[in-house]
């Protein structure tokens, strides 16, 4: 099964959670321990290993925070 690798431009994240909602594999969550300079808890991968690289999160993200690569 395909594997994906994620990278985040967290300073651009506005914590809208659209990516989280639409990720089929529950890979994503907001990082409650960090506040970016815009004052938001940015996105993070809680279980990156589950990522299949489908790119749906990036498709839904209004702010192009997420870059997805796939094997």
């Amino acid at each position, binding site marked *: 099964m395909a594997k994906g690798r994620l990278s985040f431009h967290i300073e*651009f994240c506005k914590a809208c959670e659209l990516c989280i*909602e639409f990720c089929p594999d529950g890979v994503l969550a907001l990082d409650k321990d960090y506040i970016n300079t815009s004052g938001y808890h940015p996105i993070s991968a809680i279980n990156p290993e589950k990522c299949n690289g489908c790119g749906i999160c990036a498709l*839904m*993200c*209004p702010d192009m925070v997420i*870059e*997805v690569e*796939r094997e």
Partner: protein
Amino acid sequence: MRIVAKRPHSLTEEKFHYCPGCTHGIIHRLLAECIDELELREETIGICPVGCAVLAYKYFNCDMIEAAHGRAPAVATGVKRLLPENMVFTYQGDGDLASIGMGEIVHASARGENITVIFVNNTIYGMTGGQMAPTTLIGQKTSTSPYGRSVEQAGYPVKMAELLAQNEGSAYIARTAVNNPANIMRTKRSIKKAINTQQNKKGFSLVEILSTCPTNWGMSPLEALKRLENEMIPYYPLGEYKVKGD
């Protein structure tokens, strides 16, 4: 490893000023991806509206012109008539295009101006703080329809795609939405079709995109997507309203 998703070249590195979860951002990205894929960045001249997308000239990485409120189609006409080989698009909100700019958009379409219009319908005036738009749904509460839009007082929401499809000059007219991955992909296909229409000099092309305004709807980004799906799509049916053959 191959890249599945990354920031398109046709966007600058600027961070969007849009509110969290505002789908203006998604639409910007889709348009930019189409321009990338058609390799038109250096031929493109974009016209921004007055509306939340007023700063689009900072985001699109091509020549851009900021137009007066509602006049983008006239500005685009001036540009396109003098540079017929360039790709010219306008990006307009529902207040900009369907209210103050009604005359300009209907006539650009009637003249069959060979331009592409990205029409972002969020049923409200976002930038100015949530006033009623011509596209505001019956019963929808806004700052200028505080008790909900009533037919007696404000009439019926205008259906621009249906209206403009009437004009012989319209070559491609579609309505799409950005509420889920499937519709987002469809939206991208429609935008590309619209640009192709212009490249093939067939005439006026427009994609009406149902979009959200979490801030002025008073909803979370996710609730906003639900509203788009449950309230907007039923009144504004998705689909292609005009596809001119050769």
